[in-house]
């Protein structure tokens, strides 16, 4: 296998290296890539979409269709993880461990009880539970709102600075994952239920595709935000800018929910009862 791998690698590498000789030099401002399609984006972005961050305007408008499917890819991955891993039967573990919230006493039961005790009295903890570090937990608890705020900022400010739906969505998702890591999965699940993640990931993509379809219904082409101008009561250029904002929100929502969904399924082998 290693010899085969080496042979393949040498072969492919050789091909790639020999082809690279024909390439324009790195950073050459006169290369075809710099001269053919991209100048229009740079020169017209402000004029046509009123978005200074050219990456955002290309991402969500000129090539917005790609981005819609890119969001769909994320969504697909979330659904795929769910489909592959999620299972309902409880962990066949030897015991269940509960902590009485008021007293802090830890109770271990040899098998799962018939009825789950009320979660506000007895908190179920993992069977490989170790007391969490108080400092980490509290620092994270303090940090998480700020992280989320930043995530929202990244989504909203994608027009003017690096960032946008993806980055913001991942940051929002990461904040929930951080909660799951520093507290535990059940706490995170209480904040963001499984159904909520599932629905939000679908709805996020739906917002994107829905904005496109709305444009289609308004008589434009699919994703032609300018066609939304009559309902938004703004001029077409501003409508494009606003359309980009809507789809970014959709992307953020979908990405956040999907990241959480994937993490939960991976970290608990699909049982969603206990995480790392």
């Amino acid at each position, binding site marked *: 296998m290693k010899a085969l791998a080496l042979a393949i690698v040498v072969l492919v590498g050789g091909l790639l290296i020999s082809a690279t000789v024909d390439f324009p030099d790195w*950073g050459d401002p006169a290369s075809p890539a710099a001269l053919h399609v991209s100048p229009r984006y740079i020169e017209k972005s402000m004029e046509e979409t009123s978005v200074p*961050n050219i*990456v*955002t305007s290309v*991402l969500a408008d000129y090539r917005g269709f790609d981005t819609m499917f890119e969001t769909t890819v994320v969504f697909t991955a979330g659904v795929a993880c769910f489909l592959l891993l999620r299972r309902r039967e409880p962990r066949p573990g030897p015991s269940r461990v509960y902590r009485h919230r008021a007293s802090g006493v830890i109770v271990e039961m040899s098998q799962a009880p018939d009825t789950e005790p009320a979660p506000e009295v007895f908190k179920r903890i993992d069977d490989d539970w170790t007391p969490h570090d108080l400092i980490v937990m509290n620092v994270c608890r303090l940090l998480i709102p700020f992280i989320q705020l930043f995530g929202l900022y*990244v989504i909203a400010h994608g027009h003017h600075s*690096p*960032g*946008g739906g*993806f*980055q913001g969505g*991942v*940051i929002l*998702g*990461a904040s929930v*994952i951080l909660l799951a*890591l520093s507290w535990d999965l059940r706490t995170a699940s209480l904040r963001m239920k499984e159904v909520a993640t599932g629905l939000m990931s679908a709805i996020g993509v739906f917002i994107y595709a829905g904005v496109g379809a709305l444009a289609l219904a308004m008589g434009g082409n699919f994703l032609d935000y300018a066609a939304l101008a009559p309902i938004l009561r703004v001029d077409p250029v501003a409508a494009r800018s606003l359309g980009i904002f809507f789809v970014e929100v959709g992307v953020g929502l979908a990405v956040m929910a999907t*990241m959480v969904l*994937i*993490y939960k399924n*991976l*970290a*608990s*082998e699909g049982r969603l009862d206990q*995480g*790392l």
Partner: protein
Amino acid sequence: MIWQIDLAVLILVLICAVGALAVKDLMGAAILFGAYSFLMCILWAVMGAVDVAFTEASVGAGVSTVFFVAAVFRTSRRSKD
């Protein structure tokens, strides 16, 4: 764009890539992969691809690494190669 930084980071990236594949402990590999992603992110920031760098920082270095750690934690850390 400062080509010295560019080159230095490129070399570090290569080292991290080889390292991530060479260590025997999968958790170590996951962490080294996180470092690799982060260096990549720096590289792209140096090249002026700020959006890509931002995404790589959050996705590659952040969430991907968490996924790796979660998966390794749920399976095994052992690796023969």
